Every structure is written in C-alpha cells, then in structure tokens.
C-alpha cells in the first residue's frame, strides 16, 4: 500500500467519528521506482491531507523527506524539477507513489481498531458488530 492510499483511507468502524487519519504502524516497507508525473501530482496536491502525509513519513522514520508546509504549485512545476533528485516534486513523488508499506497495521484514531497489513494489502473487513448501519 502506498502512502497515497493511506492518505485517502479512513476507518468506517462503528464508533469512529471521522476515522481519519489512520495511525501507521510499520514493520516492513519497500521502495519501488515509478515514473514521476508532474501533472498528476499537481492535480493530487489539493486533495492530499498534508499533516497526515507528514505524520506517515515520520512513522516510516523519514522525518526529513517532506517539509512542514505543502509545496506550492510553482515549486512543483519548476523547470527541471522532475530530473532533480532533491526537488519538492521528487520528494512528493517518492512519498506518495514510491514507498510501499508491506507489513504493519493501520490503527483507527477514534476506536483504536487495528487493521493489519499483510503483503501490502490492508485488511479493512469489519466484524458484524462493528458495521455502521
């Protein structure tokens, strides 16, 4: 699971108010190279919950990967940003799309319900008594 998905995912167990952001417990993670796409990142940026993304990178043990404030549009569309290894674009790309969480868990902030991640797939199945209906 990439951090992009983690950024979108919320818990919908009974008792969760927003169920967001899910706390990340990482046992194992990996990096898979992907082609950076500036247009996609620029389109996604308004939809990203930045504090949650920063918290996720800190849970991974990469506190210096992302700055406290989200990058501006100008920073992302700067000339040669895609090629420059340390640019804001490449950092965002790495955080959102290249880091894959393989083993670990997601914990609901409201109910402390734990959703285990195995082989990169979070198990979001709820028991009968946890379903909100």
């Amino acid at each position, binding site marked *: *699971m*990439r951090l*992009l*998905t983690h*950024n*979108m*995912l*919320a*818990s*919908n167990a009974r008792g969760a108010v927003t*169920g*967001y952001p899910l706390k990340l417990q990482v046992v194992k993670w990996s990096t898979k190279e992907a082609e950076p*796409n500036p*247009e*996609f990142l620029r*389109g*996604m940026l308004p*939809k990203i*919950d930045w504090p949650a993304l920063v918290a996720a990178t800190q849970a991974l043990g990469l506190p210096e990967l992302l700055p406290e404030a989200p990058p501006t549009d100008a920073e992302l569309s700067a000339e040669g940003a895609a090629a420059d290894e340390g640019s804001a674009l490449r950092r965002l790309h790495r955080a959102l*799309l290249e880091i894959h969480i393989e083993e670990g868990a997601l914990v609901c902030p409201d109910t402390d319900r734990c959703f285990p991640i195995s*082989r*990169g*797939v*979070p*198990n*979001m*199945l*709820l028991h*009968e008594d946890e*379903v*909100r*209906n």
Partner: protein
Amino acid sequence: MVTHGGGGGGGARTIWDDEAAAAAGVMRRSPRCVGEFIGDPLLGRDIVLGLWDSRPISRVSLHRRPMKSPVERRSVVGTLGESRREHTTDLCGGGEERRGEKPRRRQRGERMPRPEVQAPPEIFYNESEARKYTTSSRIIEIQSRITERALELLALPNDGVPKLLLDIGCGSGLSGETLTEQGHHWIGYDISKSMLDVALEREAEGDLLLADMGQGLGLRPGVIDGAISISAVQWLCNADKSCHNPRLRLKAFFGSLYRCLARGARAVLQFYADNVKQSEMIVTAAMRAGFAGGVVVDWPHSSKAKKSYLVLTCGPPSLNSSLPKGKGQDGAMCSDDDESDDGSGDEDGAQTVGIYERNRPKKRQKTKKNGKGKAWLLNKKEQLRRRGREVPADTKYTGRKRKSYF
C-alpha cells in the same frame, strides 16, 4: 410415488411405461422407470414425484433456474417480492442423503448457475476459481473488454493527466491492468483474499484493499476522480449472513461512493442483475444516495453479450451529463468475433426485422426469392467436378430462370 389424475379409478397402481412420466415433464435419466401410480381424478394431471432408479425424481425444467443444493440456505432478495426475503429451503427433501452424492452432470443447453446463487463471494472465489482469472484467456479477454467499455462510459477528460480511480471488486487485477495501461492510478477493493493473492502474483500496479463494499468504502470525501466496478455490485443483493440486509448494504456502498467521489466525477458499475427487481433495487439505492444517471445496456438482445452498466454522475446534473447510448440498441446483432462499433454489419442490404418489443431477435429471413443464382450453381458444379463426380455439362439451359407458370 406418482400422483396422477385422469386415470379414472382410484387405488394404487404401478406404471412401467415411460410415457406417463414423460407426460409429467419428468426428465428421463435411465430406461428403467419404476413408479407408483395413484389415480385420483380430483388431482388433475399433475405428477409430482416418481421413483426413478429408486431415487426420488424431482421435476426438472430447463428454462428455470436449477434447483439449489441443500448446502446453500441463503436468502436472495428480489426474487420474490419487494421487501420479502426468500429463504432457500431444501426443496428436494432428504438433503442429508443427497449431500454426499456426486453433483448431477449438467445437461446440454442448461445454463451454469450464476456465481451469486452458489456461495458468498469470499467463499466462491477460492483459489481454484481465482486461478481461472489468470489461465483462461476467454475470461481475461471479456474482463478487459468490459473494462475498456466502462472506461469509455466513464468519460474522463481527455487531457492526458492520470487520475486516481477506484476499482470496486478488482479481483485478480485484470480490470486494473487496463486502467494502468491508460496511465491511471487506482485503488482496488475486493472481499476475496484468494483473488487478491492472484493480483499480487500478477504484480498489479494499484493498491489493493481487502474490504467488503457493503460495509462502506471508508475513504475521505471528495478525493476520487472516478470509479469503475466490473461484475460486482449484484453481490450486494444477496444476504449471505444473517446480519446482512441488502438494502442497508447497498445504501452503505452507494453512500460512501457518493461521498468519496469528487464533484462531477462519474462511476460506471457493470453488473449482472438476476431479475428486474434486483436491477431496480440497485438503481434506486444509487438514486437515493444522490447520484444522477441510469443504466446503459449494451447488446440488449443478446443473452451472452448483454451487459448492463450503471452510469452515475456525482453532483448536480448538467447538460453534458446525459446518459450515453448503449451498443446494439437499434437491434443490431453482435457476433463473438467482431467487435463491430457501428453495429450494422448487414451484407447486400439484407433487411433485419424490427425487434423492439421482442426479447430475442427473429432469425434473419432469407430474402432472395430466386434461389441461389447461376453463379452459385456453376461454382457448385465446378466443385463437384474437381472431386471427380459426374456432372452434366454447362449449357445455356444451366441455371436458367423458370417460366412463371412452371
């Protein structure tokens, strides 16, 4: 035991002929028929049960859904009444003895029952079923074809910018592969772990989630650019567990889908409804959640190629959110080999019959009254000659037109 009327006198008799059984619509399995005949003039001609190879025979009708096995005691909503659940009960009786029996061989022409009536999705899509999705080229081709059509109906803006899409019921990631080919990022939902294992094996590009769509999608509001679902939504009509209520599950699914989609985003959900009631139930649930849109049916006259797509638009209806037209709705037939986009593959101006009110198109009538013509005849004679057959010589009389009074 055969109860049979019209025989006249009462009392029990034994019939040894097959005709009475055949008259009752009982399928014949073996030449030996042993049945007890109880004549009762009041009962009418209705043979209910008979003995057939000392096994109870049940009435088998090919056009109906095959009888459910005693193992599935599941309720299916929409088969009987509006809000009524039909609990499948053991119709055959003696379920315990039949359980160990080998499953009856499917007759020629009999349909395979839909997966939805066989088992819950997490059970039905086990390892062997999931394996089919990587080994069967037919399944792969159908899946990718449906996905391409769904993407076409999704009508994403053609600006070359990748989108974040949902694939609900992604299974082994076949539909996701098509999304990846188009450059989009996707998040796949599925309830079957075996199918997701296959997707991991195939190295699906999207992120996979093991989740039940009937429990809600659990996504932040307004973040997804579009959603597709291939042959998944009809599963929500089943109540596989005692805690399942199809209406609530549909409501949870469509409600959470509506919330997570961005304004103006579309969702295209291909589904196989078992009957009209189910289809109505799905559409109603979608409309109640706030979606605009409707069902687009491709190839409505074909039993196999017919596909229903629920095309939903999030947000207020606008001028360009009109429902697209389904393929083959003008009565054109689709064949297996050609994916004719125009759908009008008529040769030499042969006319098709208007079929709007019919479920099934009539077979194309032969329109040539004059037979096959001289060229055909000469060609046929030439063929026979090449095979060494004795053929009359070609003369000016060969294949000539008869006089009208002939």
